């Protein structure tokens, strides 16, 4: 089985650190790449290999925000099948509806408890990576 690869798109260093920490707790074999904004994510998708199996996407970011980035991913033939998990501080219903309509697979509000973060990520990974 080939190594799983996840791309995290988030401009917040603390959140990056927590995310990577949690991933290490869950499964050390998963390769995690980080992009600091939407633009960097698109560039990384085009230039780096392997293509990620799952993308975690923050919404509020400089340069290119999560909505624009999501739209771009869903536009490109090569990437549109990659499941995108919106990973945000937002708890607003309309943000959830909008992104799910745009093609996002999940909407995960960043929890404020580390164990909860691990639980949520484990659940999502199980669902999204089980077939791979």
């Amino acid at each position: 089985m080939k190594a799983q690869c996840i791309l995290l798109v988030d401009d917040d260093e603390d959140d990056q650190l927590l995310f990577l920490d949690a991933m290490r707790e869950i499964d050390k074999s998963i390769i995690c790449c980080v992009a600091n904004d939407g633009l960097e994510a698109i560039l990384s998708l085009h230039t780096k290999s392997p293509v990620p199996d799952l993308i975690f996407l923050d919404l509020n970011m400089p340069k290119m925000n999560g909505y624009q980035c999501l739209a771009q991913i869903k536009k490109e033939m090569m990437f549109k099948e990659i499941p995108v998990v919106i990973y945000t501080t937002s708890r607003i219903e309309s943000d959830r509806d909008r992104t799910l309509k745009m093609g996002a697979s999940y909407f995960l509000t960043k929890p404020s408890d580390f164990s909860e973060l691990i639980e949520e990520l484990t659940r999502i990974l199980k669902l999204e990576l089980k077939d791979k």
Partner: protein
Amino acid sequence: MKETTAEENYLKRIEELENRLAEAEQLIEAIKAGEVDAFAVRSDNQSEIYTLQSGDYAYRILVENFSEGAINITEEGLIVYSNKYFHELLGLTYEKVIGTSIDEFIHPESRATFHSLFSLALDGQSKGEIKLIAENKVIPVYISLTSLYPQLPTVGLIITDLTEKKENEKALSDAKNFINNVLKSTNHGVLSYLAIRENNKIVDFEIRYANEIALEQLRLSAQEVIGKRYSTVMPLAKEVGLFDKVKKVVETRISQTHEIKSPFSERWFMVQYVPLDDGVTCTFVEITNQKKQEKILEDKNKELEHSNVELASFSYSASHDLQEPLRKIRTFVSRILLQEQQNFSESSMDYFSRISSAASRMQNLIDALLSYSRTNTIERIFFPTDLNNILKDTKETLGEMIEQNQAVIEGSDLPIVNVIPLQIQQLFTNIVSNAIKYKRENVNPVIKINAERVSAIDIQGELGSSAEEFWRISFADNGIGFEPQYAGQIFELFQRLHGKNEYSGTGIGLAICKKIVQNHHGHINAYGKPGVGATFNIFLPINNYIEK
């Protein structure tokens, strides 16, 4: 027998003659008394009519009983005859009038007039109005003078009392003056127009009336306005559509009120047109100041709206941005507690737990603040809502809490009320969860919810509605209650009656309730008895008054 007959004949003849004499004497008496004007004397089978000089006695009676004054005066002005009416008019006896100079009864102001009328009358007739005076009483009269020459060396006068007529005229003119003064004393301009029609179509108006204020505002004199054409006096009226407005009122017979800006300046007028005859009465008043105030108010309202939006967005992003670092603190703390716990001393563990609970309390505060600020900003759309359904949803929302505390919530027959459903749902949730939270130890909470129609006058406290009737929805619990003196305070933001260690709470929940009730133009109050329970009453207007 024959002698007797002759004697008898004489006697009969004497009796006959005596009868005729008595008849003649009676006639003379009658003539003397004026009871007979004329009599017929028969001769040769023909009747001759004899009128009598004294027959004019009838006319004397007529003149005497006239309800007009009648006098006869000599060339020198001495009154030689006065009927009853005249001397009574003067308030004098017959004797005081007869033989007196007419001049004595003529008001000094009228003497010249009278003398010229008198001179004219010597040559025939004259008529005119003068004033008489007697016993300090002035009597306006109309006199008609006729010379009685050559039969009599006198002038006859018929005098008509004009007092009543003059009084009527004065009353009429007083009434007119009064109306004019009323129209003068208002600060409203008043104009009245009469339609000028051509082929039955209104082509213009004649200005029939303009009060002083109206003239002042038009900067024209009465001569320039009254009787003149509307199009001449107000040449711009047609252009600015005013003429059509006036025309419409005459045609439809429906009064209209307009706010009109002067075409010459920044002045505003409130103009009312009311149909009158085949025209209108136009009343106007300057409202420039009100307009200015309205504009200021409108600007202020916009400003307020703007600053409300700004405040809402500020408080939203403030709370939102505050949450971010807080979330990280909490996550890192939980991460450390999860992974490094075994390396901590007991006191370090305690401190970390304290950081964690402080952060979590701050999270609750921020959440509550966010929800408080949202009750101000989210759309306020009223729907007729069945409160039984709201209660059902509330029970579902609080399901876990109700179960854990074995709470009993009794409530049915709640009304359908025009409310903002989401807000009322939150109101119910806050009050019910509050009741459960502040339960007595070892006593299962029981909350009874009742609805009752009450009259506005029975509600103590400020109402945001002029509705006459309200629904009172009361939530009575059997919890710890509170001291009555705190009844007012508990709805204030961050107001807490209990220490943080006894009961968790942000001090925002009931403030949100108050806000929601205010949004519904209603009222909320609470009564408590320590150790017995508390009752929260919310009052919602029954008709859908939204104004404040």
